[in-house]
């Protein structure tokens, strides 16, 4: 991995993030999981180190690093804690990048420096009770009234929603009685028309902030429209596929974190007079886990590298996300099995990795959606050849 995809800066970044995660996050992981909250200091320390704006250009206060660097940082944090990793990834991939990709100069100047410096967190609202990957079924409406859009509707499962300073939401854009199609609007979270629901009681990612949003005649200035509806929105959604790379990286980190715990345990725990890794049943499990993690990392970094080359990563990002998330589920399951009964109690951490893994097969497009995307891409290229 190091030599194939990493340059000197990547290697330094990985070392720094690994040290940070092990020294600052690891000691409080169980406490965060129990309390369902990430201390503000962790996020502000990350902001100070530049981790909240890795792929945002220097012009707007980011680090101006590439997708490989961003994926590597998400992966290192996820090896220790998925909740912190998703807070950073949702802020960056969903809260900041859409503005960097589709925003006007004014929008970029106004919002990106605050996001990239970590002064405020970003969030993205797409999912509704009956719309997620099927964005076309979005029910939320934004009706133009003078210089403002009046928004009604709501969103569910929104990461970072109560700690964010800025939201980007998808909505039907209605102008002069005509539905122009689905577009995106930037909403500052101190908007009086925004109501934020209570924290969801989730299986995993316990310390990550996930809530429901309600919009009641929420008024947003016209200039907050992000990109253009109809044509523009399709392109806009496509640029978001890059976000799947960060979920793939998060999956690799979750898998590796659990695998490292299992490997360690297998060298300490003895049964029938020898360390359990010496039993083929355990040794083969470890071999499979390590091999699958290596494959998932290669897919992830390859997709990231392709994105950095400016190439279309629709298929590669979906493949990386699909394989890495399913690897995380398998590896965390086996990590518990290797721990036996100890794996089922919270003290040994693999229990948390297992709970944190399941959402990876669901968020940012379920495994089923990824397979739809991949198969569509396969047919597309096949038709081109024929």
């Amino acid at each position, binding site marked *: 991995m190091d030599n194939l995809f990493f340059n*000197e*800066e990547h290697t*330094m*970044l990985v070392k720094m993030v690994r*040290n940070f995660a092990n020294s600052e996050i690891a000691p409080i992981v169980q406490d965060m999981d129990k309390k369902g909250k990430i201390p503000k200091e962790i996020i502000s320390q990350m902001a100070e180190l530049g981790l909240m704006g890795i792929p945002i250009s220097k012009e707007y206060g980011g680090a*101006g690093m590439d997708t490989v660097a961003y994926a590597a940082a998400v992966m290192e944090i996820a090896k220790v804690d998925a909740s912190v990793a998703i807070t950073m990834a949702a802020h960056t991939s969903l809260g900041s990048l859409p503005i960097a990709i589709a925003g006007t100069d004014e929008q970029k100047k106004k919002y990106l420096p605050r996001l990239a410096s970590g002064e405020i967190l970003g969030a993205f609202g797409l999912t509704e009770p009956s719309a997620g990957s099927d964005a076309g079924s979005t029910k939320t409406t934004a009706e133009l009234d003078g210089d403002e859009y009046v928004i009604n509707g709501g969103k569910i499962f929104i990461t970072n929603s109560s700690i964010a300073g800025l939201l980007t939401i998808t909505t039907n854009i209605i102008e002069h009685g005509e539905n122009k199609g689905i577009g995106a609007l930037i909403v500052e979270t101190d908007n009086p028309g925004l109501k934020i629901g209570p924290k969801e009681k989730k299986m995993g990612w316990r310390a990550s902030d996930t809530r429901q949003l309600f919009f009641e005649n929420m008024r947003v200035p016209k200039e907050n429209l992000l990109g253009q509806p109809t044509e523009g929105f399709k392109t806009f959604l496509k640029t978001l596929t890059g976000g799947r790379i960060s979920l793939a990286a998060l999956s690799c980190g979750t898998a590796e974190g659990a695998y490292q715990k299992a490997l360690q345990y297998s060298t300490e725990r003895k049964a029938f007079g020898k360390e359990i890794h010496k039993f083929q049943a355990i040794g083969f499990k470890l071999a499979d886990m390590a091999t699958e993690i290596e494959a998932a990392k290669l897919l992830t970094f390859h997709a990231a590298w392709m994105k950095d080359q400016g190439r279309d990563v629709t298929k590669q990002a979906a493949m990386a996300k699909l394989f890495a998330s399913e690897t995380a589920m398998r590896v965390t399951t086996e990590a518990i099995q290797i721990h036996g009964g100890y794996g089922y109690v919270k003290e040994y951490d693999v229990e948390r990795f297992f709970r944190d893994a399941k959402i990876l097969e669901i968020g940012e497009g379920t495994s089923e959606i990824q397979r739809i995307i991949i198969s569509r891409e396969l047919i597309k290229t096949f038709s081109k050849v024929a």
Partner: protein
Amino acid sequence: MNICVLIKQVPGSEAQFNVSGDGSWIQETELPYEMNESDNYALEEALQIREQKGAGEVVIVSLGPDRCQKVIREALAKGADRAIHINADAPYNTDPYSIASALANAVKDERFDLVLSGLQSDDLGFGQTGVILGEMLGMTTATLVVGTEVQEGKIKVKRELEAGWFQWQTMDLPASLAIQSGLNTPRYPSLKGIMTAKKKEIKKLNFVDICNVDELQSFAGLSVQHAEKQTEMIEGNIDQIVNRLVDVFKNEIRIN
């Protein structure tokens, strides 16, 4: 306030060592290398002093082969301004006196107010280089430093003595201080620091060009004690074999 920090690259604490074939050194390939631990604290102290004073430079000086660039870049990423790399290839000079004299020649025109070094290197651990260098440059010197307070033309240092005792000492500047681990919290390099490290100047010198003294001590060799296994084939008739076995059990393995 211009500060020089001596930084050495040493094998990481988790490294597994093997002696090289001719017993002259360790096998270096695949060894993980890190910044010497106490040097990291010396660097942090230097950065904090510069921040307090609001002006001046922190200059890294490192002696060793090309791989040292890694720890030099790391120090630059944390905020040091520039570096001097004294290239020294294997076989490594392990004599603190000639190393200090090369360092002295490298920095003699720099007019540093402070030279900070780690208390000792985690590989050889002589703990002499910073003190000898200080003497060569005509500086006041102190070791086991666990606290600093810069004053007008002077520096007050806290030194760690035995049995939980500490000593405060005020010294004239310029001074060379050997820093004990744990006196501060070393920072992480920020992404901005990592991205700008490459653009900072690293002046390159060659050890052989700037070392003008003979070694006072040299390295004789390395060895590891091995437990040896011996197999003895007992031959002869049954009586001879049994007698020899009983002898081994009684007198060599000592089974009672």
